[in-house]
């Protein structure tokens, strides 16, 4: 059976599964639509949260980011998991006890202010919409690659699929679909990793394979990798090469950004009890860790496989013991077919600059040391001949690089789609909840009946899918920057206001509003200064380089500073104005104790 048919079968089967679940779990009330009737088992919720949270970026891009930078990009691993500790300890149980449906609703009630609630809605919309564009693009690209359709058709297919199961099922349908999507994506991620770990180190578990010994050559895998990449002029894999301050701030920005993402927070509204919310955050991290502890192995092993493809001698730890791969081999050999496949997409390319019939891959940007300098002189090298290696292909091409069977490749395709679709659905739910519950019911028409609110929720979900699809088809300049923006904004606006709402009885309406505005505005200004106004090219006021950054803080790390500004401003303004009213202090005291949360939709 050819690869295309296999892809079609696996992707088709996974979609049938999602549709079946959506029909089985369709929502009939607002409580089912927004919070799955608060009946989701904590383990199930953990699995759904994991799928909700792990986007196309986690599935496709993260291992590639680690592969080419090594230790320095551990920031992603620690940052995107450490946020769950903050969620479990500082937010999830209290927001669950609060017992409402959306994040802006908490902000509005706790800070007794419609203005605060609307600002909360704006923050949520900016964070979620920028994030969802990236997901829709990911869906389009994955479809295009594996179903051989155009990116536009791929995106439209994805939009129809999400529309069907998200609009029909609401939170209830999305929850169980995400459980299925988690199973698909983790299987897809793990199978190739296990095969490759076995091939290289003989370890079944990629987690221990990373620290294992190579089958060929007999050296420790990581030591050999360090040796091989430094011989080629690259920075060592396990070494620390960036600014420590920036590494800390970036990790912290990802952590508090994660804890502040509205589509993740609302998942904790779906469990029956406060104690389930605490436990559920733990289960979410268990399921996330199944991918996140495999990712560094996937990254390092694919880097090693790429290097040994280019320099067969590298497999034994001695790069220059054999000559580089020949042009002839790349064009004709069966085991190099993946290179030809990916050359078509433009994500991988090579050029025989010195015309010796060999493709020499090395770092031509650093001052060469021995033995590279000798090789450059002896072989008359004119620069790195592997001219393009897109980082994203490290996961997608991994099974092909390791010569794994066709069905593994088909599973990876289905897994990539599951990752993008599940996150898109979660984001769309957060967006539609903010529109129908916070804007329509909360501000425009408080007397709306439940039936009409449910209809409004479905219509706003449909409209958000339409907007996301249109933006995905014509991505604005900032699509590539969504991570920096979404995390920075969530970190600087939503997380601090929620945390102060729970841990302080003194922070008042004025403080919260001033804090949120100061946090968001400062973060946006900092990002725009270096990335350009609204990410329009050439409008940046300072170059986006470490030398120009304020104290070496990168725009992506600034969310941490924005959060500190938010906390500081809120504290000062609150202390300069009057205390919050008695009933608000009672509200804060009551969300701090679990008792009274499990009644059927408390005070609703």
């Amino acid at each position, binding site marked *: 059976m050819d690869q295309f048919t296999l892809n079609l079968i696996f992707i088709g089967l996974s979609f049938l599964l999602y549709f079946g679940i959506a029909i089985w779990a369709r929502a009939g009330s607002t409580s089912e639509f927004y919070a799955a009737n608060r009946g989701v088992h904590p383990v199930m919720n953990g699995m759904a949260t994991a799928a909700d949270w792990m986007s196309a970026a986690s599935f496709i891009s993260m291992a590639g980011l680690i592969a080419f930078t090594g230790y320095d990009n*551990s920031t992603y691993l620690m940052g995107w998991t450490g946020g769950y500790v903050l969620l479990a300890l500082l937010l999830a149980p209290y927001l669950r006890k609060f017992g409402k449906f959306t994040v802006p609703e908490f902000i509005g009630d706790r800070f007794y202010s419609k203005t605060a609630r609307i600002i909360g809605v704006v923050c949520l919309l900016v964070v979620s919409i920028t994030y969802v564009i990236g997901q829709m693009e990911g869906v389009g690209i994955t479809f295009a690659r594996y179903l051989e359709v155009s990116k536009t058709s791929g995106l439209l297919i994805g939009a129809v699929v999400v529309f069907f199961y998200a609009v029909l099922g609401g939170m209830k349908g999305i929850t169980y679909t995400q459980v299925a999507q988690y199973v698909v994506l983790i299987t897809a991620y793990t199978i190739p990793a296990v095969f490759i770990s076995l091939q290289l180190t003989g370890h079944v578990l990629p987690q221990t394979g990373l620290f*294992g010994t190579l089958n060929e050559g007999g050296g420790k895998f990581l*030591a050999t990798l360090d040796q091989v990449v430094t011989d080629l002029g690259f920075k060592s894999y396990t070494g620390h090469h960036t600014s420590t301050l920036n590494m800390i701030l970036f990790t912290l920005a990802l952590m508090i950004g994660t804890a502040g993402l509205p589509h993740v927070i609302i998942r904790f509204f779906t469990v029956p009890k406060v104690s389930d919310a605490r436990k559920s*955050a733990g289960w979410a991290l268990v399921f996330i*860790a199944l991918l996140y502890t495999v990712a*560094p192995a996937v990254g390092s092993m694919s880097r090693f496989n790429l290097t040994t493809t280019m320099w067969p001698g590298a497999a034994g730890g001695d790069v220059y013991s054999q000559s580089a791969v020949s042009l002839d081999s790349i064009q004709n050999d069966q085991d190099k077919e993946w290179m030809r496949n990916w050359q078509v997409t433009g994500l991988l390319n090579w050029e025989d600059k010195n015309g010796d019939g060999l493709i020499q891959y090395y770092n031509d940007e650093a001052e060469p040391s021995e033995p590279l300098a000798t090789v450059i002189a002896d072989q008359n090298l004119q620069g790195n001949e592997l001219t393009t290696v897109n980082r994203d292909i490290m996961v997608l091409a991994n099974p092909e690089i390791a010569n794994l069977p066709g069905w593994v490749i088909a599973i990876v395709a289905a897994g990539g789609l599951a990752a993008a679709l599940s996150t898109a659905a979660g984001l769309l739910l957060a967006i539609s909840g903010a529109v129908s519950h916070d804007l329509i019911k909360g501000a425009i028409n408080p007397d709306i009946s439940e039936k009409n609110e449910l209809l409004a929720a479905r219509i706003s979900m449909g409209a958000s899918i339409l907007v996301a699809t249109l933006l995905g088809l014509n991505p604005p300049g900032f699509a590539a920057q969504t991570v920096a923006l979404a995390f920075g904004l969530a970190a600087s606006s939503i997380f601090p206001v929620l945390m102060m709402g729970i841990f302080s009885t003194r922070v008042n309406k004025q403080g919260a509003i001033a804090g949120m505005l100061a946090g968001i505005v400062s973060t946006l200004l900092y990002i725009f200064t270096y990335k350009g106004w609204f990410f329009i090219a050439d409008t940046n006021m300072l170059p986006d380089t470490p030398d120009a950054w304020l104290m070496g803080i990168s725009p992506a790390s600034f969310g941490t500073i924005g959060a500190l500004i938010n906390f500081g401003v809120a504290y000062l303004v609150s202390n300069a104005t009057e205390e919050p009213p008695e009933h608000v202090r009672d509200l804060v005291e009551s969300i701090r104790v679990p008792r009274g*949360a499990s009644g059927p939709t408390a005070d609703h």
Partner: protein
Amino acid sequence: MSEQGGTKDMAIEGRGSGYWKANLRVIWICLIIWALVSYGFGIIFRPLISGIKIGGTDLGFWFAQQGSILVFIVLIFFYAWRMNKLDREHGVDE
């Protein structure tokens, strides 16, 4: 908001019995460990513990790429278990 009176009484009871203080203490302990394994062992103190070798590299690299994640999981479950116990001791469980 029919049960507001009830929750208020319980809140005061929770406050009086030091429930919230005990909760904050557990949070602080967990957050110190959280920061120690990631920012500490994984980044700042990595050079100090680089003498401890593991699988072709040093302990700090392991903490940065795997160890801290495993500790995070343990921390959350420890917190959930400890808080359930506190909830029962202070009579504020569900």
